[in-house]
């Protein structure tokens, strides 16, 4: 085998763990993995992909969750002539028992190529490469071990959240639970395409945004607090004595100048009304500074990649909302957003693009939210005002 794939083989070298080694491991048991290796080698030679536009494939009752994929040289690589992938929804926070993981491995060893992505960049478990005839039995087996498909196509995509309260001291919301709850509530929206395009939900427990929600989610939930952050002055002094330059590295980097270091009293002073909860002082001194206690979330809308009208970072929609189960307000809001988008959106128009086309004002009216200055960095400069 080695001689046939010299370029791929080259990628077994070097200290970083090698995906080629992984393909070869799978290839020992799976002809499709073996063919995949050769396809990849061929791409390295030809400098183009050898996959064709995927047809519509899937499993009974679902409109998505499987990405169809065919080789453009099926004669040459018959075992990957059809090589579809499953998107399998993950447990919130990507926590697993080894038992569950082994069950997935067994199913995928049986029906697929034995290759996976842990995880896809949306957050699904990606089971990489199954022939068409194995799709349904494989799904049945997955369902049997308690797994279900994630989203693909014009549906709600697999919601994800950061590790949150499970292992992070800063989480102002229960990211894992809200993600799980919304996922369960909106199973139908996840599995049956009926919208203009995809819709993504992500939740981060604090403004550090460890799931990059603000950049990647149409509906972005970010934990925050409404009161003042908590400062333990003894612990601050400990950091200072430990050699941290509090003046320069904490106070000096606060974006709003909300902090002051009283060198004499060796105290960190805060003007709470100037704190914009950027997390920096907390990040620098986790033992000394903590988020406040009046927890909730900021809701932002419209994050997305460049296609079609350009990329967006999510825009502030609700500066603060309490986030407690059963999350009724959030669910109602999502339904309102989807209704409006569904009614007015064009094919392949993300919700942000629709808002851009029809105007934020129209959107706010449709979902019943009052304008507040927190929604904008600055008011309009142009005088083209409608009355």
């Amino acid at each position: 085998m080695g001689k046939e794939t010299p370029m791929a083989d080259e990628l077994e070298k070097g200290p970083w763990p090698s995906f080629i080694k992984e393909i070869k491991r799978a290839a020992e048991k799976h002809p499709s993995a073996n063919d995949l290796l050769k396809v990849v080698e061929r791409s390295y030679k030809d400098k183009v992909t050898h996959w064709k536009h995927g047809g519509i494939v899937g499993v009974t009752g679902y409109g998505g969750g499987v990405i169809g994929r065919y080789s453009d040289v099926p004669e040459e690589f018959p075992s990957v002539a059809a090589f579809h992938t499953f998107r399998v929804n993950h447990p919130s926070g990507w926590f697993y028992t080894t038992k569950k993981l082994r069950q997935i491995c067994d199913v995928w060893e049986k029906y697929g190529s034995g290759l996976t992505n842990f995880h896809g960049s949306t957050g699904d478990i990606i089971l990489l490469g199954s022939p068409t005839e194995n799709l349904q039995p494989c799904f049945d087996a997955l369902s049997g071990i308690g797994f279900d498909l994630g989203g693909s196509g014009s549906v709600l995509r697999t919601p994800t959240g950061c590790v949150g309260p499970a292992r992070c001291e800063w989480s102002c919301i229960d990211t894992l639970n809200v993600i799980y709850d919304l996922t369960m509530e909106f199973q139908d929206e996840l599995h049956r395409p009926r919208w203009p395009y995809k819709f993504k939900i992500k939740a981060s427990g604090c403004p550090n945004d460890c799931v990059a929600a603000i950049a990647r989610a149409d509906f972005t939930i970010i934990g925050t607090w409404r009161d003042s952050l908590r400062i333990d002055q003894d612990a601050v002094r400990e950091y200072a004595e430990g050699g941290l330059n509090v003046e320069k590295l904490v106070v000096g980097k606060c974006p709003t100048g909300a902090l002051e270091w009283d060198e004499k009293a060796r105290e960190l002073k805060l003007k709470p009304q100037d704190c914009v909860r950027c997390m920096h002082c907390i990040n620098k001194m986790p033992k000394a500074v903590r988020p406040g206690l009046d927890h909730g979330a900021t809701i932002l809308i419209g994050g997305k990649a460049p296609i079609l009208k350009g990329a967006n970072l999510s825009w502030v929609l609700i500066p603060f909302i309490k986030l407690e189960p059963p999350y009724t307000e959030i669910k109602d809001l999502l339904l309102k957003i989807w209704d409006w988008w569904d009614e007015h959106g064009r094919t392949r128009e993300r919700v942000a693009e629709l808002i851009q086309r029809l105007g934020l004002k129209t959107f706010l009216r449709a979902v019943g939210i009052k304008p507040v200055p927190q929604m904008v960095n600055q008011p309009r400069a142009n005088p083209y005002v409608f009355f």
Partner: protein
Amino acid sequence: MAKTDIGPPDFREMLPEVIKKNYGKWKYHEIVKPGVLKHVSETGDVLYTVRAGSPRLVSVDFIRDICDIADKYCDGHLRFTSRYNIEFMTPDKNKVEPLIEEVGKLGLPVGGTGKCITNVVHTQGWIHCHSAATDASAVVKAIMDELYDHFTSMKLPAQLRISLACCINMCGAVHCSDLAVVGVHTKPPKVDHEHLHALCEIPTTIASCPTGAIRRHSDKEIKSVKVREDLCMYCGNCFTVCPAMPLADPEGDGVAIYAGGKVSNARKPPMFSRLIVPYLPNNPPRWPEVVSTLKKIIGVYAEHAQEDERMGEWIQRVGWETFFRLTDIPFTEQHIDDFTHAVETYRTTTQFRW
């Protein structure tokens, strides 16, 4: 028939005991050393996390290997991070070093915490996607082989996040990364006039083009479309809706590099990554031009940025003109925005550096 709409397993069943007990009660953390976190709870409980790099594209046997470790040291639990790293967690300090040793035996690096270069968010590439203008896994492997020491150490001004997308659909948070590698086509689609009318709806195809480059074929006999090449910026959107308009081209395809994006709200608000190198060729299997460009930039950043300054924060402070000067990267027409909100990027002040 299988049950549908059961959703994923309940995360609560996946949590280790110590986490169940201290859920929402964590008080603070420390980075004990690269790749090792220590979280302390208000209850006094302690949790150690060992973070290991993963190639993401892994065999089921790889998963079984890490499960073996988790069974041995972590009571049968583990998790993955939002950047594909593997996290082994244990309340027992004494298990940390042996655990690290076993992870090492698997050939996995321990690191990815603090002021490091963590794992590279990436996509399918030539492994699975029909849109790919470059590969993903191979480029990432080539990059991380070279930057390996930065994964296992914490000596940069701040954490540096690299992402890669194999086409400008930009699966992943590539548009907001410290450094982003993006596969790009640089030739217009070659229309397959023979099959187009069978495979595609012509109006949808025409409507798909953001620049209006696609028109109905002038010859009424030919049920197809034409591309005005001067209006095409190779976005591939037409190909997404119409397979008869492939863009892939061995000579034209390559990668672009973007820099200075971030996602967190820490200090500066989130920002987009911005174009720094419009085009580098695909040079499999190790993309040397890409790797050396990234290394160069990281070197300059490491030398000039202040402590805790993310790539984009540093560039904002010293100005893009300084960035281009220090990195020796040529500034070209391509760098100047000409899309919808282009004017918002033009400089409207006499404040700049020479």
